Structure formats: C-alpha cells, structure tokens
C-alpha cells in the first residue's frame, strides 16, 4: 500500500487539529462563529456572553487534546508491547479497574479531592491491566487477540458486578456513579487537569523515548537483544507509561474506549509501522478524534449532549469488527 508523504501528513494533521480546536470552542448549546472565537482568543476579552462561553470551553478543549493524545499513545504502546492488534485500554479492562477503585474510594473512604481520585484510578488501572495481560499471556502460545479480548471482557464483567454490589445499597451515590459508566471530557477543570498533568507528561516522555527500542522489539526478542536492547526494562517502562496515560485520563474523564484502538491502526495504515512516527502521530490523531467525537456528541445530543465515550464506542467498535473480519482465521 502506498504510504503518504510524512511532511504532507504533518501539515494536514496540524490543519485538522486547528479545525477541531476551533470547532470544540465554537459548537455546543450556543453556537458561536469561528471569527468571533478567534477574536476572543486573540484579545482575551470576557465581556459579552459569547466571549464568556468561549472561555468556559477552553479547559474542556485543552483536556480533550491532552486526553486524546494520551489515549492514542497508550494504545500504540500497548499494541506494540503485546504485539496484539486489538490491545486498547477499554479492552484490557483498565477503565473498569479505575472505576472500581474510585467507586470503592467514594463508598468506603469518603474521598473527594482530585489527587485521591487520580491515585486510586491509577492504582486500579495498573493492577487490572497487568492482571488481564498476565492471564492472556499465560501458556506457550502467548497472548492472541481473542484471548486478550476475552480475558478483558471476563475481568470487566466481574469488576462491574463488584461495582454494582458496592453501589446498589447506596442510593445517594448512585447518581454520581452513573457518570462513571460513560466517559466524557465535559467534567474537566483546571484543578483536575493540573493534578494529572505531571503523570501524563511522564507517560508521554517515556513513550516518546522508548519508541526506537520498541521498533527493535518488533523484530522479535532475540534480534532485539542482539541489537543491545534490554527487553525486560523496555517492556516494563512502556507498559507502565501506557497504563499511566490511560489511567490518569480515566481518572478525569471516566471510561473513554476505542480511541487507543483505532488511532494507531489508522496511523499505521497511513505511515507504516515505525514507532518513531507512530507515537507522535497517534498523539495528534487521538487529540483530533476525541475533540471531534466531543463536538459530534454536542451536536447530536443538542440541546443537551451525548458523552464522547459513547461517540467513540460507536466509531471504534466497527473498527474492531473490521479488524476481526480481515484477520486470518489462524491468527485468532
């Protein structure tokens, strides 16, 4: 398949990102013209209603960029480490793990501060990701797509049952909990963002720096060791980065599935499998995808809004189905 010129793609993706940022600032319950959005951003006024609305939408848009980028990189890392085309935070059950820990924290320890949410979400997502990945890679045949998907589904189902068991007796927290089932970037605040930002930056840096070694890893463990890669450490670091990225995102946004699944796939189609390009481009594409999913949700759900987690599931699940349809029977 003919690959696209990387420079052209960079230009296109910058244009795409700018359009999605503008759209995210402009559309919603109150539509505002692009020109007015740009003017407001340039001169930083906060006088008219439209200008205030634009300012209100800034944290949400910024978080959309950060969350989309994190999920995209997280998916690229997990797919590279597991050598499994359908590895994705939502399929690994990472989201349910984070939800369970946060719900338990609310119910038993009365947590309320963002740092506590984030800590618990990170802990939960790491434990569950390692558990699911471990289960699916037991045995000689290693982790195949179907085993990974099933291990994730089984774990998610069990954890959801435990979540129900915690939540059902507490009717007062039921309403809160409802919003933990569907991810959305609408709840982003400056405070929450500042708390997760260090985690995301660490994950991002590890992801970027490990990309050359991950390319070597793709050649197989023996070749990689021959090339001087310390495979164990690389795996550990990149897994950690992948889990931190999606765990921290889930802590603020709730479960947003399938971004990490579709983005690396589409980038690979356009640019080929090199991780050096895959990881940064996955970040950009992830941001564009999540922002657009959010805008679509606002437009479809108008006057209220459709959570971006629902939109991404509806775009992403068909991609999973396509991958399964195209897969050779044996590789499952």
């Amino acid at each position, binding site marked *: 398949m003919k690959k696209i010129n990387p420079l052209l793609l960079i230009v296109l993706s910058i244009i795409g990102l700018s359009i999605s940022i503008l759209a995210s600032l402009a559309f919603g319950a109150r539509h505002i013209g692009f020109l007015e959005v740009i003017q407001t951003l340039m001169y930083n006024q906060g006088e008219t209603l439209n200008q205030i609305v634009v300012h209100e939408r800034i944290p949400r848009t910024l978080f959309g960029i950060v969350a989309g980028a994190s999920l995209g990189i997280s998916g690229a890392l997990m797919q590279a480490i597991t050598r499994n085309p359908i590895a994705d935070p939502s399929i690994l059950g990472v989201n349910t793990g984070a939800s369970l820990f946060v719900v338990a924290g609310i119910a038993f320890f009365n947590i309320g501060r963002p740092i506590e949410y984030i800590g618990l979400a990170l802990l939960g997502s790491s434990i569950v990701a390692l558990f699911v990945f471990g289960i699916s890679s037991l045995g000689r045949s290693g982790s195949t797509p179907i*085993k990974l998907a099933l291990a994730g589904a089984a774990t998610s189902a069990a954890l959801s049952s435990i979540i129900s068991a915690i939540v059902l007796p507490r009717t007062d927290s039921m309403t809160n909990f409802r919003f933990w089932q569907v991810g959305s970037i609408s709840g982003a605040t400056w405070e929450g963002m500042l708390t997760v930002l260090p985690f995301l930056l660490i994950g991002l840096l590890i992801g970027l720096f490990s990309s050359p070694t991950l390319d070597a890893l793709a050649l197989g463990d023996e070749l990689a060791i021959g090339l001087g890669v310390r495979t164990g450490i690389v795996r550990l670091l990149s897994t950690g980065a992948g889990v931190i990225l999606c765990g921290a995102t889930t802590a603020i946004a709730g479960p947003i599935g399938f971004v990490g699944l579709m983005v690396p796939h589409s980038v690979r189609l356009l640019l080929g499998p090199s991780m050096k390009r895959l990881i940064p481009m996955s970040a950009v594409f992830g941001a564009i995808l999540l922002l657009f999913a959010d805008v679509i949700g606002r437009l479809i759900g108008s006057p209220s809004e459709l959570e971006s987690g629902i939109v991404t599931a509806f775009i992403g699940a068909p991609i999973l189905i396509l991958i399964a349809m195209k897969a050779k029977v044996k590789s499952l």
Partner: protein
Amino acid sequence: MSDLMTTTLLMGFRRRRFRWAFLTSILILTVLVLSCMALVLGNTIYPLSTVISVIGGESIQGATFAIYTLRLPRMLTGLFVGLAFGIAGSTFQNLLRNPLASPDIIGITSGSSIAAVFCILILGLSGPLVSIAAVISGLLVALIIYLLSRSGGFSGGKLILIGIGIQAMIQSAISYLILRSNQNDIPSALRWLSGSLNGVRLSALPGLVSVVLIFSSLIILLGRHLRILELGEQAATSLGVRTDLIRLLLVLSGVFLIAYATAVTGPIAFVSFLSGPIAKKWVGSGLPTEFPAGLIGAILVIGSDLIGQYAFSTRLPVGVITGILGSPYLLYLIIRMNRQGG
C-alpha cells in the same frame, strides 16, 4: 464375535444412558430442594407444611401473601429463566463447538437488552410488547453478527471477536439510555446492567413458561441431530441430517429463549455461559447436554438469588452474584485454552 461386540457396545451405551438418567435426576432433585428453600426462606421463615398448604389453596394470614405474591413468582421466574439461559447457552456452544460462543459473550443477550431498555425507559411500555421487541432485536443482532463473521471464511474465533465488538457498542448505548433516564427509574434500569429477579410479576409468568416449554422441547427434540452436527458438517450431511434447516431452527429457538428471558429479568450474567460446560463435565460427553444445562441454569439462578438475598447485609440482585461467580471460571477457561496451544 461381532455379536459379542455389539452386546458390549450396547451394554456400554445402556450403562451410560443409565448414568445420564441418574445424574440428571440428581440435578432435578437439587432444583426442587432449592425451589423449596426459595419458598421457605424470607423475612419470616415458614415451615414446609405451611408452604404446601398455601400452594394447595389454603388461606393463611400473612403466609398467603408472602408466598403467593412474593416468593412463588420469584422462584418460578428464576426457575424458567434459568432453564431458558442454560438450554440456549448450551445449544449455541454445541452448535459452534466452542464453549466461549454463548449468547451472553457474543452479544445476543445485549441485543435483547437494548430493545427492552429502550421500550421501558423511553417509550414507557411494559408487558408483551417489550418481550416482542426484545426477541426481534435479539434475532437481528444474532443475524448481523453471523453475517459479519461469514466474510472471508467463518470461524468461531472471528464470531466471538465480532460479537465482543457489537456488544461494546450496544453496552455504551444502554449506558447512554440509563444516563438519560429519570432519577426514579434508575433502580429498575440498573437491572439491565446485571439482571435481577426483583419486582417480577405473576402476570409475566404465563408467557415466559409457554415460551420456555415450547422452545426447550423443540431444542431437546432436535438434540439428536445436534449430536450428529457436532461431528462436523460433512459427516452430518452424509448421515442424512438437513444441516441448514436444523441449524436455523436451533438458532431461532435459542434466540427466542434468550430474548424472552432477558426481557423478563435482564441479562443475568454468565448463566448461559456457565451452564453448558458444567453440564458437559457432569453428565459426560456424547449424551444430550441441553436439558442438564437447563437444570444447572435453574440451579445457578435460584441459588445465586438466595445467596444475593440472604448472605449479605444488603440484598444484591442475582446478576451481581453470578457475575462474581462466573468470571473466575471464564478466566480459567482462557488459561486452559492457552495451555492447549489455542
């Protein structure tokens, strides 16, 4: 010589059939014991004699209400829903020759759920219309999954992956509907996430019972052909089985059972997935597993409901218990699948 062999084979067959009948009777007995427990236990514990006389038509202050209005519908619903889930799950697993291909894992159950949730929460419907919608939507989802997994060569693995993808979509749509629902509807809506016997009504029973009886008998009658189908497509055709027709009838009956039961109680997690393999372990292979699987389904539902109601300080819906019980088994199955190398 050949006479002797025939006799030995026949004796072995009789012995296995006797064993099957014996083990199945044990299952029936367990179902009966659990059903009695479901009628006896509760806020007030009534002795078995009271329960029997109430069912016999005697009117006893307090006991009649508790048993006739609360416990009997709950127990019967659990019994028939369990039968439906168990039989349908085992049918799908045998048809696709894969223990993971049960309707709750490949997304058919969620197809029925979404229609039921939509009818109840958005349209405000109840009763038979909900069941009809659930059946139609379950059939549609089954058809879509089947058609998608046929492209480029059918395989059980492909079907399961596609089913998981479809399920993810439907699940998020259900979450959306629940998120939008009225605050007061949430408790009843939450049952659509895990399945529950709370609030079942006597009026839903006649429909459920007739659907379960008709389609279970159909599946059990067709079981002979299913055994041959399990040998593979070619063997079945050469033995004179009309494979396509039988398969279609079995799938339709299975989906009817699943969809109707789901419309009544919501998707009780993992019952249809667990029943088949347990039944196979219990009665051994080569003999019909559909009926034993149905009984095990009933045992799972009634037993888990008893655990959910009385084992903890708060009452938990049955689906929460089966979800927690079922997952370790699924994980075990996945690990074992690995050890066998695929």
